[in-house]
């Protein structure tokens, strides 16, 4: 597709015959089509919606994933006149986002129907959030970044308040909205400073060039503002205050999406902005991120110890997990970036597997308190096994997928001499293993008479209701990948490495830092 | 707060002074002054307030005429005589009304919020008067040919609800508050179809400027007026304009039977007069804009070039210019007052709608129709560029 623009009278740069290269957003288009189809089907009533919306969503997201796979290692061309770039990094993160939505949807149907809220709109809003997150992964100019960030955020606010008759859900939405809007405003301030520094350009490339020659104070300010937004999106301490309340009040499948999809998009944004733009301020932002990472790992994992609610515990644990991923970001080496991608992919499966288990448990018991899980092994071995495997993987116990992800991160950090980060990471990992294991101990070891009231009154296990089968499929799938993926993790390593190798931006940054090291040595 | 705007606009863009044929009072005025030895800037400065004052006076006189017409036509509809003692045919009656309001005691209720109570009517009136900036009476006969023309009017008219809410709230009276809320809801709801109808016209003339919009309708006299190309848009615009002016059948905000007098309940004296003035100026303004957007503005039903050619005169001759300029003003005013006449007739022929009917009509009928109209216009413009603006 080509755009021919002629401007009578001149005054604007004439844009002639530039390639739009719209094929790069084909996966997003599939999601968009699914979104519109959901809205249309929803017009036919709730019954029709609950029958047709799930297949439409599977179709759209499946097509998106296939199209993403086809884009892998494709020749790189900026699309939409420099608004979007489908490099391998973007494809990897978009894949993580799309997969997290697919899994979140699989575990949502029963939850949403049980709560009596409309299914069609739920799916549509979640798909819109996915759309925003996917565009965020590949956006390469400030305006596109802002709009996709807002699409993701606004949909997330709506989703977290989706259980509208529940005061907790409303509170979560309001808190998220207020804090998120403040973060968006801060981002806009930072972006406007960057826009001013470039002299009227919004593409990240121009921003990067302008930053190399501009005065320090104003760029430092822009850096801090932009960094605050990124930190808000990935819920790094001290920008994490919204997380526990929002996670506790939001519908659980939404939390599953927020903790993986939204966070993956945040990390993609961090890479694009910090590595791509603030290259000349490498040392500064790395120091800041080191602080953020240490704080996140420490506070996230320590506070998680004291939680009584499963959702809240996972919220704090996700803050800690984000801290681990930041180690890869701070390294700035090929291994560091690859470890980030790998860990996000691993986190996708283990975290969503854990969420599938707790959704299933709350569907059957209406509770998410950790003490209510006591003695569950007697009544529901599937949940016990699945949750145990996923939590062990999150804690980084050897044969699981999470172990390899974490060890790769620590290895990359050690190789880059980030000793502080690695040591803090190791210690907090041990702390995290403590609270993960205590849940498992609660489920497995208790004698039958010590089981909680909820478990004593556990209902008959039945998978017959519509929406239970997808939940089971997602649960089993995630647990399988988490358990077996660790042993067969070699393809994942090669995949993560080729994601970094196929991204010119990262290669450029790696080469620059290596030459800097060589010059020093 | 927004008072600097007119001065500013004219400083930034000193009119479309030198483009196109027709009467150009500004350049002749400034060149005359420069001949007397004044600097160009000083001459310009002397020129600036003149069109503003002129238009302000024209607006107020327009209101007086309007009030008289309203009384006389209402009387005729109801088979009465109407005012007849104050001046011939009662033409001085509006003046008497105005004087009465001027001398009335200016009451501020004890529990009302004095500051907001005073500021409300001002905020209602000022944007309406500011909108006269963009009303053209001829090729160069307007205060300022701002590039954003009609868009400025739409933007300014969106300030009005703030004033209405303010006076409704400040009166400390539930009828006033309800009236203010109703007024704001109504004006927001009808602004959207209105803007969409304008957008269709703008799309055809490729410009937001009122002068360009009129010029685009000037090819073949009455046949090239936009009303033939935008019949639906014309109806939407007219209905929405009536609703924005709170004219019957859409005068819910001051529906006497329900709300005493809505947000005006507590007002008396000059503050009430400001509301009164605002609503009539707004009516004349809307009528003028309908004339500009759909009825060819200052254009005569037969193109003046043809007439001049038939009489063997050049269009650029000074005398012909003066005649065509005056004809333009007369035509604009004539068209506007024809529409005002229709509005007054409508007032006495249609019953008032209910608030839910009003909102349903705006959102569920006018808005979709306006969207379809926009879409069809875009399609027709692509299909027949010569008829619908290339």
């Amino acid at each position, binding site marked *: 597709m080509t755009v021919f623009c002629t401007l009578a009278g001149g005054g604007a740069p004439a844009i002639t015959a530039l390639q739009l290269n719209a094929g790069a957003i084909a996966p997003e288009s599939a999601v968009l089509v699914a979104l519109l189809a959901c809205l249309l089907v929803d017009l036919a009533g709730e019954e029709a919606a609950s029958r047709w919306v799930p297949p439409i969503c599977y179709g759209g997201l499946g097509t998106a994933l296939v199209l993403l796979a086809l884009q892998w290692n494709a020749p790189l061309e900026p699309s*939409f006149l420099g608004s979007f770039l489908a490099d391998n990094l973007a494809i990897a993160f978009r894949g993580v986002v799309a997969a997290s939505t697919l899994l979140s949807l699989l575990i949502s149907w029963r939850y949403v129907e049980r709560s009596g809220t409309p299914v069609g709109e739920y799916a549509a809003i979640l798909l819109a959030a996915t759309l925003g997150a996917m565009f965020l992964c590949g956006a390469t100019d400030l305006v596109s970044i802002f709009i996709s960030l807002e699409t993701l955020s606004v949909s997330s606010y709506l989703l977290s308040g989706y259980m509208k008759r529940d005061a907790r859900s409303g509170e979560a939405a309001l808190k998220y909205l207020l804090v998120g809007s403040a973060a968006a405003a801060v981002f806009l301030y930072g972006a406007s400073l960057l826009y001013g520094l470039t002299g009227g350009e919004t593409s990240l490339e121009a921003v990067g060039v302008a930053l190399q020659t501009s005065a320090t104070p104003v760029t430092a300010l822009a850096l801090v503002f932009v960094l605050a937004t990124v930190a808000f999106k990935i819920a790094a301490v001290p920008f994490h205050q919204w997380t526990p309340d929002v996670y506790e009040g939001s519908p659980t499948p939404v939390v599953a999406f927020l903790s993986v999809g939204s966070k993956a998009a945040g990390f993609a944004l961090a890479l694009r902005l910090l590595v791509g733009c603030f290259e000349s301020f490498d040392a500064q932002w790395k120091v800041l991120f080191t602080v953020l990472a240490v704080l996140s790992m420490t506070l996230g994992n320590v506070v998680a110890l004291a939680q009584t609610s499963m959702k809240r515990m996972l919220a704090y644990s996700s803050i800690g997990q984000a801290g681990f991923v930041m180690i890869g970001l701070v390294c700035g080496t090929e291994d560091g970036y690859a470890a980030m991608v790998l860990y996000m992919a691993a986190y996708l499966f283990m975290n969503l597997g854990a969420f599938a288990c707790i959704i299933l448990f709350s569907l059957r018991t209406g509770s998410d308190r950790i003490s209510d899980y006591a003695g569950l092994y007697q009544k529901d071995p599937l949940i016990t096994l699945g949750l145990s495997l996923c939590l062990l993987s999150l804690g980084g116990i050897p044969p699981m997928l999470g172990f390899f992800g974490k060890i790769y991160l620590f290895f990359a950090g050690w190789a880059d001499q980030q000793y502080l980060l690695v040591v803090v990471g190791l210690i907090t990992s041990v702390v995290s293993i403590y609270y993960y294991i205590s849940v498992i101990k609660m489920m497995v070891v208790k004698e039958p008479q010590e089981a909680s009231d909820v478990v004593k009154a556990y209902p008959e296990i039945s998978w017959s209701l*519509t929406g239970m089968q997808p939940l089971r499929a997602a649960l089993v799938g995630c647990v399988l990948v988490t358990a077996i993926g660790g042993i067969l993790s070699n393809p994942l390593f090669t995949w993560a490495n080729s994601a970094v190798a196929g991204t010119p931006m990262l290669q450029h940054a790696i080469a620059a830092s290596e030459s800097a090291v060589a010059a020093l040595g | 707060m927004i008072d600097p705007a007119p001065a500013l606009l004219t400083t930034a863009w000193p009119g479309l002074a030198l483009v196109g044929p027709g009467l150009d009072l500004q350049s002749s005025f400034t060149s005359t002054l420069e001949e007397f030895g004044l600097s160009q800037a000083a001459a310009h*400065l002397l020129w600036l307030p003149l069109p503003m004052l002129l238009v302000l006076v024209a607006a107020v006189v327009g209101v007086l005429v309007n009030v008289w017409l309203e009384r006389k036509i209402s009387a005729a509809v109801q088979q009465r005589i109407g005012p007849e003692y104050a001046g011939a045919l009662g033409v001085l009656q509006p003046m008497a009304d105005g004087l009465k309001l001027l001398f009335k005691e200016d009451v501020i209720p004890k529990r009302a919020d004095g500051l907001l109570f005073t500021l409300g009517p001002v905020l209602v009136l000022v944007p309406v008067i500011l909108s006269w900036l963009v009303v053209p009476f001829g090729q160069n006969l307007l205060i300022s040919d701002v590039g954003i023309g009609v868009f400025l009017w739409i933007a300014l008219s969106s300030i009005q609800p703030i004033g209405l809410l303010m006076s409704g709230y400040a009166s400390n009276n539930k009828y006033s508050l309800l009236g203010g809320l109703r007024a704001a809801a109504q004006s927001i709801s009808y602004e959207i179809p209105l803007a969409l109808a304008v957008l269709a016209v703008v799309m055809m003339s490729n410009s937001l400027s009122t002068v360009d919009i009129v010029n685009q309708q000037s090819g073949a006299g009455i046949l090239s007026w936009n009303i033939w190309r935008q019949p639906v848009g014309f109806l939407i615009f007219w209905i929405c304009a009536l609703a924005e002016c709170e004219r019957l059948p859409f005068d819910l905000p001051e529906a006497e039977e329900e709300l005493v007098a809505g947000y005006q309940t507590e007002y008396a004296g000059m503050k009430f007069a400001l509301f009164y003035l605002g609503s009539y100026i707004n009516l004349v303004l809307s009528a003028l804009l309908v004339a500009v957007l759909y009825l060819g503005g200052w254009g005569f039903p037969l193109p003046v070039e043809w007439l001049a050619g038939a009489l063997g005169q050049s269009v650029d001759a000074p005398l012909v210019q003066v005649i065509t300029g005056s004809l333009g003003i007369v035509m604009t005013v004539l068209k506007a007052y024809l529409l005002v006449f229709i509005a007054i007739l409508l007032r006495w022929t249609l019953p008032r709608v209910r608030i839910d009917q009003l909102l349903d009509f705006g959102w569920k009928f006018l808005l979709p129709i306006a969207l379809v109209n926009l879409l069809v216009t875009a399609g027709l413009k692509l299909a027949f560029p010569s008829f619908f603006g290339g």
Partner: protein
Amino acid sequence: MTIASVTQLICFVALSLTLVLGALGVVLLPNIVYSAFLLAGVFLSVAGLYLLLNASFVAAAQVLVYVGAVNVLILFAIMLVNKKEAMAEIPGLLLRRVLSGAVCLGLFLLLLRVDLTTPWAVPGPTPLGEDATTLIGIHLFSDYLLPFELASVLLLMAMIGAIVLARRDVYSSDVITGEAADQGLIEKERTPLLLESPPRDTTLLEKV
């Protein structure tokens, strides 16, 4: 100094003063209605500043969107729930105010320093005046096409979401089983452990 530049300077000073004082008023005034009305004033003075920069389209859009839509909506919300109720005393209010004031002051000083030390490229690009509207259109359909289209998805979703959340469902039920549902979280809120054993509603039930 020409007359035009003096006019501009006066306008700038007047607008900036309104802007700053209005913004302070929005934040500091105890009466929320005054804050909301002042916000309209702030928006209008921002529009005035845009006019000074020869960006008339942006100015009109600012008035239309912020004053005509956003501010009116805020006022609606305030007036529909305008209950005068005594707020509970917030402990340590003075300390909180002093702290947030100090943070704001620090940020202000930082910005001031940045503003004064940065070599700004003045004068900037020449204003386009009337051509700006056309140029905005061209940008929207060329290099900003993607964000422009994405914004439509954003607005559509925001609208649908707002309707879903605000809609008053007459009844709600589980579509699959037909059981009544409460549109709340599945994880029910429960009383703390110690209070759990005696059912709380017995007194109420007895009364009924």
